[in-house]
């Protein structure tokens, strides 16, 4: 039943691009119908997912295909848990598209966006529902390719094309790794199916190999350091609702695949769990430091996604270590925190990207150093961006706090259970990450929404249209709801965890899993009162006289004399130069009468600019001799095929028999 609902919903969403395509003459109607179809499909799908999360069972769906065999689709609680964000963001994103990329103005691109939007959702839903490697790969590739087309929607701009190519490259590496993974899985277990292999089928070596393949393939999709290099560029240039989908949902498909496969392998030696934990913590720390150094609003949010994925993976690492050491509480808190953070991240990150899209829509730039003062013109977006930022900083009373609290709790539990070293490393790092996140988001909010506008476009910005505000409001409600009443999601979370680890059965209630109610109440009240006071203060100030501030003795103070977002984070980035390099171009020493001068600073992407581009350049230099074979003449290319064919055919010649015929044995 629940699976039928999910499949029906997915099909509706997949087809949702068609009305826009067919009704090209009435672009407005076509796009509205597309959005309605997408929303309807998502609602049906959500119904199926929630049914599965509340324990409604379902039959498998299988297609007869001898080479692949077995059940294809099944909906269990874990799949349903990951389906919920897919459908939620699918519906909200297509609604958002009505305002953000109206078909009446950019007809071709809007139709293109809607079609691939549906396909992207279909791919993700298929891979989450898949019960065997082949179906999973179908979904995975559908998702990867539609995301590529979505990223390069605006293909006339060179940065879009570049980001698209880098993403395509990375995603192909993922897919190839997964091909190897599933083929190897089949050769070891005898089928493509995702079920725990019989005892004795896996050796230590093959388990290690499978794990490494999982970490590479899924880690790259999830954006785990140092495999995250494709992510910031793609998220920055994609249309904002696509960024929201990619950041909030698509990355977690990597998390899903990793959980699904790795937990089938049984308890893994601590070196692997430790590796996942270390990679997660490193992603979290480096990701958020890089985020705080960005001055591009959407790149900042993209790096913050790297940080959140890192937090999710550190929880998974804790759970893996707990499985090996027989500590069900570590599994409970690690897995619970990680899974809940998947939902939370899918709540606040799309919200932030939607708001950022509103900014881009209104002011035409993502550069924080050219924005400013937007809160005055777009109060709604500003308020919701602030809400999302608070959630992303894991502050109460919003949802990010809950999941990070669970993780803290897990690591502190480990402190008493013999995981001292781990806890002493992990807890401070997560704490630093939280602090840096506040810097990053204060920078984003302050630079974008406060102060005076730094460019004429920012000065005339307008509030986002209703179609764009509505999705933000829904997500804000979700964030608040999980933040204030986390008990609501607890049964669903427990069911999803039980799929992976039966050890957590019955512990969710017994082990005071959630932050205590009293703590939430006190902190929530404190924040409510302090924000009321802030509002009151702000309201009182409005009655004050409007007059120029102290102008430092300048004759004509200008809004460009403000602190920019970059200058805000400069002091901070100096502290972290050992971790993240900032390249600053300063003007040479000024002559007596200063000439026109410019200074410029940027943060090179450590993996892409630091490692991959130089390495690729060197490889290209080495391979330059091979260019001789690439004349550009079609005939010679066909000749290569012919030569290969000849060689292959020659192996079939029955030389032995011919020799016998020619030289009969005397």
């Amino acid at each position: 039943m629940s699976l039928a609902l999910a499949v029906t919903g997915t099909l509706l969403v997949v087809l949702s691009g068609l009305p826009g395509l067919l009704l090209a003459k009435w672009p407005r109607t076509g796009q509205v119908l597309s959005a309605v179809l997408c929303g309807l499909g998502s609602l049906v799908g959500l119904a199926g997912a929630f049914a599965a999360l509340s324990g409604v069972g379902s039959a498998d769906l299988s297609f007869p295909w001898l080479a692949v065999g077995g059940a294809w689709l099944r909906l269990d609680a874990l799949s349903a848990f990951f389906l919920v964000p897919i459908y939620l963001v699918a519906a909200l994103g297509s609604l958002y598209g009505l305002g953000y990329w109206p078909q009446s103005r950019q007809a071709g691109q809007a139709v293109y966006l809607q079609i691939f939007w549906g396909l992207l959702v279909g791919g993700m839903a298929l891979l989450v529902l898949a019960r065997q490697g082949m179906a999973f790969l179908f979904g995975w590739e559908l998702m990867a390719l539609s995301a590529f087309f979505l990223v390069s929607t605006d293909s006339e701009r060179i940065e879009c094309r570049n980001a698209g190519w880098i993403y395509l490259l990375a995603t192909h590496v993922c897919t190839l790794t997964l091909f190897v993974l599933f083929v190897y899985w089949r050769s070891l277990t005898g089928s493509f199916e995702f079920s725990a292999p019989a005892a004795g089928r896996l050796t230590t070596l093959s388990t290690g190999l499978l794990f490494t393949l999982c970490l590479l393939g899924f880690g790259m999709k999830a954006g785990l350091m140092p495999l995250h290099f494709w992510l910031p560029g793609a998220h920055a240039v994609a249309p904002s609702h696509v960024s929201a989908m990619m950041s909030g949902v698509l990355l977690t498909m990597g998390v899903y695949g990793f959980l699904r496969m790795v937990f089938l392998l049984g308890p893994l030696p601590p070196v692997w769990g430790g590796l996942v934990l270390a990679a997660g913590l490193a992603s979290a720390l480096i990701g958020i430091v890089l985020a705080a150094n960005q001055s591009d609003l959407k790149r900042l949010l993209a790096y913050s996604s790297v940080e959140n994925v890192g937090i999710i993976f550190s929880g998974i690492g804790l759970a893996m270590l707990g499985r090996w050491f027989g500590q069900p509480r570590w599994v409970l808190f690690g897995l619970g925190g990680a899974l809940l953070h998947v939902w939370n991240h899918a709540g606040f990150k799309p919200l932030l990207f939607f708001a950022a899209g509103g900014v881009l829509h209104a002011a035409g730039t993502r550069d924080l150093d050219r924005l400013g003062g937007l809160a005055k013109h777009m109060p709604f977006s500003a308020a919701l961006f602030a809400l999302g930022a608070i959630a992303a900083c894991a502050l109460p009373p919003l949802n990010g706090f809950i999941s990070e609290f669970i993780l803290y709790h897990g690591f502190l539990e480990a402190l008493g259970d013999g995981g001292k070293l781990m806890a002493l490393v992990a807890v401070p790092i997560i704490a630093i990450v939280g602090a840096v996140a506040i810097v990053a988001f204060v920078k984003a909010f302050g630079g974008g929404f406060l102060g005076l506008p730094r460019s004429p476009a920012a000065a005339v910005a307008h509030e986002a249209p209703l179609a764009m505000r509505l999705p933000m409001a829904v997500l804000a409600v979700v964030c608040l709801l999980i933040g204030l009443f986390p008990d609501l999601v607890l049964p669903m979370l427990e069911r999803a965890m039980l799929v992976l680890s039966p050890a957590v059965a019955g512990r969710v209630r017994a082990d005071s899993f959630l932050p205590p109610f009293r703590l939430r109440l006190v902190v929530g009240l404190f924040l409510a009162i302090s924000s009321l006071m802030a509002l009151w203060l702000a309201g009182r100030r409005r009655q004050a006289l409007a007059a120029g501030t102290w102008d430092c003795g300048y004759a004509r103070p200008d809004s460009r004399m403000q602190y920019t977002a970059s200058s805000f984070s400069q002091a901070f980035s100096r502290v972290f130069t050992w971790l993240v390099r900032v390249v600053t171009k300063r003007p040479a020493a000024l002559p007596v009468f200063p000439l026109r001068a410019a200074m410029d600073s940027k943060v090179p992407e450590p993996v892409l600019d630091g490692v991959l581009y130089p390495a690729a350049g060197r490889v290209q230099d080495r391979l330059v001799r091979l260019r001789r074979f690439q004349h550009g003449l079609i005939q010679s290319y066909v000749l290569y095929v012919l030569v290969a064919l000849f060689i292959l055919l020659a192996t079939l010649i029955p030389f032995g028999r011919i020799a016998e015929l020619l030289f009969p044995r005397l």
Partner: protein
Amino acid sequence: MPNLVNTILVIVLALNLFALGNSRLMSVIRIVSAQGVLLGLLPLVMHGHITIAALLAAGVGIILKAIIIPSMMLRALRDADIKREVEPLIGFLPSIILGALATGFSLLFVTLPGLADEAAVSLVIPTSFATVLVGFILLTTRYKAISQVVGYLVLENGIFIFGLLLVEALPLVVEMGVLLDLFVGIFVISIIVNHINAAFSSLDTRHLVSLKE
């Protein structure tokens, strides 16, 4: 019926050499369409009895390869308004010698492991290989885009002959798939021909080198 089959196959082999040695584009196209007709007849005579699958393969094959595709090419030739001569990389005589060598090479495969019971039609496999190789020779030694199309057509004919061995064992779908590929390929090439012609005022594929990165 092996005699009839073998006769047809020998004619096909001879047509291969004709196609290699002819200097006029129009005649080459006609030769290849004649080859298409002959090959279309093959499934009917091959197994001694006529099945619906064989009829379909024959019908679609003849219509596509002998009528539709040649007329598309002739039309492209007329529209492009170019010199109607084949421009070979190597002379016609060396082409024929190469083709003959390829045919001889293919005769080494009179039998293949696993297909030995089809000995009655022993020329099938060598003809198939020879035709594929001649297709490749046409592809590699001719400069005009139209002759490239002819090369692909001959190549497909070779694959078609091989498919005949399997037409009883394998679903018709495979052959239809190959035909579809070919049709789409030629459709695309016809469009490209027009574009090359518009851009370079000739159909010489050597101009495409300037598109190299």
